[in-house]
């Protein structure tokens, strides 16, 4: 991956609440960073005396955890840099405690060639503050017809294969792509919305959509594809991750698939944990997301899924849009909301509501995505890269969209009151964000 240049000096954290979901550690103590890696960690580290290190950070009891890994980030680079570049996305990530962003291939041009994967990695190396792990397209041009060169793309550094927010409609193409991906033990990330059913729809079908008079699609458009792809995984043996789910029906189907031992995982976007279809309110386009906000019962199911672990990862589904695409009528506006800076506060909402413990939530943002993607991050183990977030789980704040670091400001959480956020963020031991 593309780490900014690691510091060669030593950095010591003391007086922290160390939470390492990978090892189950949750204890007071200290952590030592050397040459960008975690050199030591322990409950008694630096308690009595500092060891003469040049730089010591007193955490004053705040949580020190592995930096977050966001598995679903759309940027505008290449092609739409006015919405978001890798550099601006990395600013937002750092401010959100996110140290690795997994980028989607839905750019212009689409990331479907080994040379383009190489381009993303080089650009990230040159411009981004956090690590960038690019996904490549599963089918050429995201057209759902011809599989990409999964072997060569993987060698070039593609971490997984996805058509982003597009569903491969043709089951024969999907079957062969999964089969081919299994050959290379490549992870396929799917989007579950039956493309014909959701064609032209802006919102979930139901009473509220009817009252607003908006074109709508039934929520089961998700379960249809989830169930299809579970069957195809069973046939092909491919490792498969549903990028984000949003309905009870999908959750139940995935729970059953996991019980049967299939190599399936799934994610949920932070906004599907906190918002429901009613939050669209008076045609509020910043809450037009893909898949759309669902019923309250489905939202509650997503919280339940995170709590019981059926949902493996929480993602931002960060999708920057500009005034040109959002200052429109609801039906014509583009889908998507930025989310890198609200991922952690939104996830902490579940902790404050008593739905899940802090280590459990952090696991879904660190250790679990790292394991799923085969990344060496998301852990406080000795020797691991020192990607860290120092977070205050309790600090109350109200989201001010003008204060966002992302180039685009289309947040679904404008004005929302949160509790808890990142204070400082470190990539390879180097501070990339510090809240003033």
């Amino acid at each position, binding site marked *: 991956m593309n780490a900014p240049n690691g510091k060669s000096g030593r950095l010591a954290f003391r007086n922290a609440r160390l939470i390492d979901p990978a090892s189950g550690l949750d204890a007071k103590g200290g952590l030592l960073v050397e040459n960008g890696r975690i050199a030591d960690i322990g409950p008694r580290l630096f308690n009595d005396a500092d060891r003469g290190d040049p730089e010591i950070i007193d955490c004053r009891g705040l949580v020190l955890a592995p930096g977050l890994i966001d598995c679903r980030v759309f940027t505008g680079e290449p092609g739409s840099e006015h919405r978001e570049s890798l550099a601006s996305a990395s600013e937002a990530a750092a401010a959100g405690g996110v140290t690795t962003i997994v980028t989607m291939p839905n750019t212009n041009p689409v990331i479907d060639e080994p040379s383009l994967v190489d381009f993303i990695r080089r650009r990230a190396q040159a411009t981004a503050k956090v690590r960038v792990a690019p996904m490549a397209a599963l089918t050429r041009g995201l057209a759902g017809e011809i599989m990409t*060169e999964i072997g060569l793309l993987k060698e070039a550094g593609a971490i997984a294969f996805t058509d982003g927010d597009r569903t491969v409609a043709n089951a024969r193409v999907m079957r062969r792509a999964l089969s*081919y991906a299994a*050959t290379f033990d490549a992870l396929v990330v799917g989007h579950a919305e039956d493309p014909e059913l959701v064609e032209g729809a802006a919102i979930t079908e139901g009473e509220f959509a009817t009252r607003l008079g908006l074109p709508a699609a039934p929520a089961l458009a998700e379960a249809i594809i989830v169930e299809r792809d579970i069957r195809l995984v069973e046939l092909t043996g491919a490792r498969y991750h549903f990028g984000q789910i949003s309905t009870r029906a999908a959750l139940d189907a995935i729970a059953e698939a996991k019980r049967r031992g299939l190599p399936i995982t799934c994610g949920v976007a932070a906004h599907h944990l906190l918002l429901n279809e009613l939050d669209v309110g008076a045609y509020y386009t910043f809450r037009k997301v893909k898949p759309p906000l669902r019923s309250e019962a489905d939202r509650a199911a997503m919280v339940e899924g995170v709590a019981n672990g059926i949902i493996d990862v929480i993602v931002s589904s960060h999708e920057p849009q500009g005034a040109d695409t959002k200052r429109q009528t609801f039906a014509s506006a583009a889908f998507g909301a930025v989310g890198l800076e609200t991922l952690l506060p939104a996830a902490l909402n579940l902790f404050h509501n008593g739905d899940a413990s802090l280590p459990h939530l952090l696991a879904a943002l660190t250790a679990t995505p790292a394991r799923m993607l085969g990344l060496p991050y998301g852990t406080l183990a000795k020797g691991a890269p020192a990607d860290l977030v120092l977070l205050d789980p309790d600090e109350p704040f109200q989201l001010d969209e003008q204060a966002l670091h992302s180039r685009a400001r289309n947040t679904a959480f404008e004005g929302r009151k949160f509790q808890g956020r990142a204070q400082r963020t470190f990539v390879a031991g180097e501070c990339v964000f510090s809240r003033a």
Partner: protein
Amino acid sequence: MTSASLPPILKTSHLLGIEGLCVPEVTALLDLGESYVAQSRAPNKKAAVLKGRTLINLFFEASTRTQSSFELAGKRLGADVLNMSVKTSSVSKGETLIDTASTLNAMRPDILVVRHQDSGAAELLSRKLDCSVINAGDGAHEHPTQALLDALTIRRRLGHIEGLTVAICGDILHSRVARSNIRLLAMLGAQVRLIAPRTLLPAEAERFGVEIFTDMKRGLAGVDIVMMLRLQLERMTGAFVPSAREYFRFYGLDREKLSYAKPGALVMHPGPMNRGVEIASDIADDLEVSVIAEQVEMGVAIRMAVLDALARGMP
């Protein structure tokens, strides 16, 4: 003298596949093939075992190599050989396969050699015709003379087949050559491995009693024989394999991958080759390892043996 007076080699009057043959039949065919290698290298290549017999080559799929191999085999054994070109026949005018069979039957051939794009075509013709039918390749089902010529090539080079490990690499899914070879090599006591991306492996292929690999280097480790298969161009543009360059990178036979095989391992290919797709040019041309030209020579000999064997059962 004709061979009809000699003791029979095959139990049936057709050669439709390796399936149904037994070890003594195969061994006798290979032995007979061996004698025809010598005859084909002599100045006078002619024999009279098929004197007066008529052989019809009916090729629904173009195949210069197999068709001329059968033609030469028939002629060297003294038969009258007729090549039916499907392009200019009534088949291309919409005649059904059964009608074609009836027409051919009325011409009273002794042996029909058929190549067809559909599996089961040779079987169908064998039920409708009075003559002997040889399957020269039907769909993705069988190509028995290819497997026999491969076995003869291996046996001549290494002296035996039992106990060898043979890797068959490439488009197994669509390959009749692979299916016939799997059957024959297993029957003769070889260990067979299949190496291909999962998109080119047929369902439940392990039921053939083979080992399956998707990683070519692991699959080639320690093998005695590497059999490459042809990958048709239309299958490497995204439906089964994303591109020719990716296929060559992971499944094309080059020096590096070949180095994982046993030292001195032989490389085979049924032809025609796609150089730079499934096999590197320098390997195909390296006479130390490539037996591709020898396979062609064995092809004529083994087809003479098959024709001879079938003639022995004729009235």
